[in-house]
């Protein structure tokens, strides 16, 4: 007979032990809150569902120390390939820390969870939320299951860090639905025996990946993550994503000779910032809050930056006794101050880029390939393109 699980109580309940959840848990625990971090899977960080490329400038700001336990490769730069495979190089010296590391996500996620645990957070595995608990309209906890056994967790604040497929926000009545044009469906193979340059992360644009791109991120020792993201609004038949990726690999002998040792898939939001990320007793962070950058598809940095703010605000709200939406809006204000403008600007850029035919991509990359950009910014890119192909930048006037 299975043993029952006792109901639990805490100050802050964080649902999901990915980077955003662990970051929230760590910083809430550092503020002295009683934190419980629950993870539906049996292992934190696995299976990996990520391209595993991150920039490095933000790591220190959220208290992450780079470690060889989760860094595979420190890249020097990025190469962006046009449809006809003209290439534009972004070197670290010019990109100002925009490029960074290729990491081992399972080790990285565990390291962040260890930081949260060391700060005082408690962790439960194989424990998933099945609904929120409500009192007078406010969320006061969750109904959960551990190893199939139902029980309740009462919390002053529930943080939804439950990823792309997040349910916490939906159960709490926060609109998180995505338009089909605001989602990329992604597939990636980790391949060994490939010829890739370990100094660069490579990005391939154009019709090879409609509304997204093909990426090659070196993992070292002839191993690379080779993946694709395709805009869902441009998908027609089932398994199109797999067909796009397989066709691209076939056409690139350096990768066609590779052998697959891992395969991951997932959904990535490429949406404008959510209008609402808090409700009475609830906060959303990370992929669950649609914080992924709509241009790059990168979500770890934004999720962690917001996670630190979320943990701090949640802990202080719990201590003060006011966990209403208006009290939690301080998180909303603070994360928007740091992230919202870039997210919105990058979404506008993405909405324009997904409409471009291959010839225009070729022109843009061609205009940029000879140029040393002093600073990587949308403005500098547009200026460089305008110099050589002014007709192209006419369409981007509102971004200038």
């Amino acid at each position, binding site marked *: 007979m299975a043993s029952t699980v006792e109901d639990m109580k805490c100050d802050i309940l964080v649902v999901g032990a990915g980077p955003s959840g662990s970051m929230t848990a760590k910083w809430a625990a550092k503020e002295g809150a009683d934190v419980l971090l629950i993870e539906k899977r049996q292992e934190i960080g696995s299976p990996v569902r990520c391209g595993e490329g991150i920039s490095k400038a933000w790591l220190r700001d959220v208290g992450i120390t780079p470690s060889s336990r989760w860094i595979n490769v420190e890249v020097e730069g990025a190469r962006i390939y046009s449809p006809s495979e003209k290439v534009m190089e972004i070197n670290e010296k010019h990109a100002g820390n925009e490029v960074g590391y290729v990491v081992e996500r399972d080790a990285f996620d565990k390291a962040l969870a260890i930081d949260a645990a060391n700060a005082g957070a408690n962790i439960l595995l194989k424990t998933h939320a099945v609904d929120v608990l409500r009192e007078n309209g406010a969320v006061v906890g969750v109904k959960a299951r551990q190893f199939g056994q139902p029980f309740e967790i009462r919390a002053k604040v529930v943080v939804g860090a439950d990823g792309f497929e997040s349910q916490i926000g939906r159960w709490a009545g926060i609109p998180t639905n995505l338009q089909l044009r605001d*989602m990329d469906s*992604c597939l990636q193979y980790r391949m060994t025996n490939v010829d890739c340059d370990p100094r660069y992360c490579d990005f391939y644009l154009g019709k090879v990946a409609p509304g997204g791109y093909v990426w090659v991120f070196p993992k070292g020792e002839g191993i690379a993550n080779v993946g694709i993201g395709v805009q869902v609004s441009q998908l027609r038949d089932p398994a199109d994503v797999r067909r796009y990726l397989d066709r691209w690999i076939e056409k690139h002998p350096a990768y066609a000779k590779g052998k697959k040792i891992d395969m991951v*898939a997932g959904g990535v939001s490429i949406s404008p910032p959510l209008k609402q990320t808090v409700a009475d007793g609830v906060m959303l962070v990370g992929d669950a809050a649609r914080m992924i950058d709509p241009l790059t598809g990168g979500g770890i940095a934004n999720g962690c930056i917001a996670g630190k703010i979320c943990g701090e605000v949640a802990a202080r709200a719990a201590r003060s006794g006011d966990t209403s939406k208006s009290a939690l809006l301080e998180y909303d204000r603070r994360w928007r101050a740091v992230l919202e403008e870039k997210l919105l600007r990058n979404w506008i850029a993405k909405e324009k880029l997904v409409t471009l035919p291959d010839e225009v991509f070729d022109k843009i990359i061609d205009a940029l390939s000879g140029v040393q950009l002093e600073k990587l910014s949308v403005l500098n890119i547009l200026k460089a393109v305008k110099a050589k192909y002014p007709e192209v930048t006419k369409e981007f006037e509102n971004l200038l």
Partner: protein
Amino acid sequence: MRVLPPGRPRCIARDVKVKCENDEKEGRPPVVRKKDLPIYSSGQICVSCGACVGICPLNCIYLDEWRIGFDEDVCTRCGICVRACPVGAISIG
């Protein structure tokens, strides 16, 4: 457990209705889209990535450990999950 999110069920239903009317106008055989068509995710193809769960406008897909399931009472067979699945595990009909 499955709560209708503040989404767009009316738009989905309207799209389905318009499609049925166009089928009729252009002489295509009528296909009953709602509920009568089975919706199925192949356990052999599915990789439990959660993309379908995240995109479903009616929030009627759930990811239970390593399988996905559909809430038959809510699903209108809009087909968004079929399109979004990166490995083509879901089929309708």
